């Protein structure tokens, strides 16, 4: 990758939720202008790690730095976009009304709204009330909201769940374009076949990283041909790659 500056630096992160350690001493550097895939089975701590990067998660130890400042710092609120797994938009407003409101909050102009709408391919649904949209459309509205502020870091929790393959490919293309423009993209998935579209993979299991590598190196190191097999090989060998 042309741009190799570190955008997110996680050092010895530890998160405890409900008395259980869900992230244990996790360290990783995430580079700007790349798509970093966060993969692992559901319940492995992906969402908690993403929340820690966004700065909405109470952490028990360690540090997370985003763009050189501590995660959650007030100065980052316009520069970090976060899309939760459940679409966080108002179901009783139309798509445009949602975007108008969030645009006012982040101080984005009207052009940002139409740009975000085209990016997620919802131009035709602008006047529809969100509650009448399909699940996939709703999550695209949520993604559009995150794009409004043109963030430097985009954290996406399972953004492609339930989308049809054509749209999924289209969104991944969009992610690639954004990354090429310098945006740091962190995207989680439990669908391993999406991994190959990432520049870098963080494989997680039980709150710890079991791999941090490019897809190609990961497959080479584990002598496997797909990420799912690589994941299994890593778990069975019990040692990090």
């Amino acid at each position: 990758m042309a741009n190799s500056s570190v955008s997110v630096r996680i050092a010895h992160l530890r998160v405890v939720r409900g008395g259980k350690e869900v992230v244990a001493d996790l360290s990783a550097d995430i580079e700007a202008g790349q798509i970093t895939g966060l993969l692992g089975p559901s319940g492995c701590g992906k969402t908690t790690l993403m929340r820690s990067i966004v700065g909405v998660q109470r952490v028990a130890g360690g540090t997370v730095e985003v763009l050189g400042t501590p995660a959650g710092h007030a100065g980052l609120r316009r520069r970090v976009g976060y899309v939760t797994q459940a679409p966080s938009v108002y179901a009783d407003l139309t798509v445009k009304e949602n975007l108008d409101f969030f645009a006012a909050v982040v101080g984005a102009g009207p052009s940002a709204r139409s740009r975000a709408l085209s990016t997620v391919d919802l131009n035709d649904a602008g006047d529809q009330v969100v509650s009448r949209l399909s699940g996939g459309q709703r999550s695209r509205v949520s993604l559009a909201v995150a794009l409004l502020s043109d963030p430097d870091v985009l954290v996406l929790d399972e953004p492609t769940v339930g989308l049809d393959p054509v749209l999924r490919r289209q969104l991944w293309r969009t992610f690639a374009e954004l990354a090429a423009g310098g945006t740091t993209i962190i995207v989680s998935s439990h669908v391993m076949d999406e991994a190959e579209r990432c520049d870098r993979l963080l494989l997680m299991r039980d709150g710890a990283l079991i791999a941090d590598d490019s897809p190609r190196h990961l497959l080479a190191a584990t002598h496997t041909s797909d990420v799912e097999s690589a994941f299994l090989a890593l778990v069975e060998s019990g040692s990090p790659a």
Partner: protein
Amino acid sequence: MNPVIALAVAHRVLRQLRRDRRTVALLLLVPCLLLTLLWWMFDRDSLVFDRLGPPLLAMFPFIVMFLVTSVTTLRERSSGTLERLLSMPMAKLDLLLGYALAFGAVAVVQALLAVGLTVGLLGLDVAGPVWALTGVAVFDAVLGTALGLFVSAFAQTEFQAVQFMPVVVIPQILLCGLFVPRAGLPDTLHGLSDVLPLSYAVDAMQRLQGSTGLGGDFWLDLAVIVGYVAATLALGAATLRRRTA
């Protein structure tokens, strides 16, 4: 604080409300229907209606706004939009001010309807000016909104939020001087009624009912209500957490 954001929140809340016609109808009509019921009950003795009308004009908007706001904000908390907003460049107070502005606007309409009905059609007889009656009703509705915002922080479900109504609102109704004049309450309860905001709304209404002029006591009551609104909004802001477990 950013007035543009607070106004955007207010605009958004009103837009959401506009789609929910049934809630709007309930908000605006229920106080009117209850006051009409009261008027009918005392059909034979209009003096009782004159005595009970003004305090109830303060009470109904308070209760209705408390309920609506606590459920609405709880919905914002549980839908994930609150967390999203707090991860954006938005001051917590802007969010609460936006809510207070939106529901305050609804309260103005509600109070105009209720006062117009009771004074205009049902013949409620008050000595003080009608605009002051309306003003107290509006401030009281905003007080209900502020309390509802605050209390929603302690509810995990809409079911719980509704249950807070008897806890927070009914003691205030019992002690506000409607059933027993506050001076006639046992000392401890009198002291308690002195710190409950609804008492001041009812006091203000009763002053308007009995005297023509707006004395210093009336403005003092109003100032206390406004003070409670500000304090409750600040407390409500303190319950919003950008970082959660």
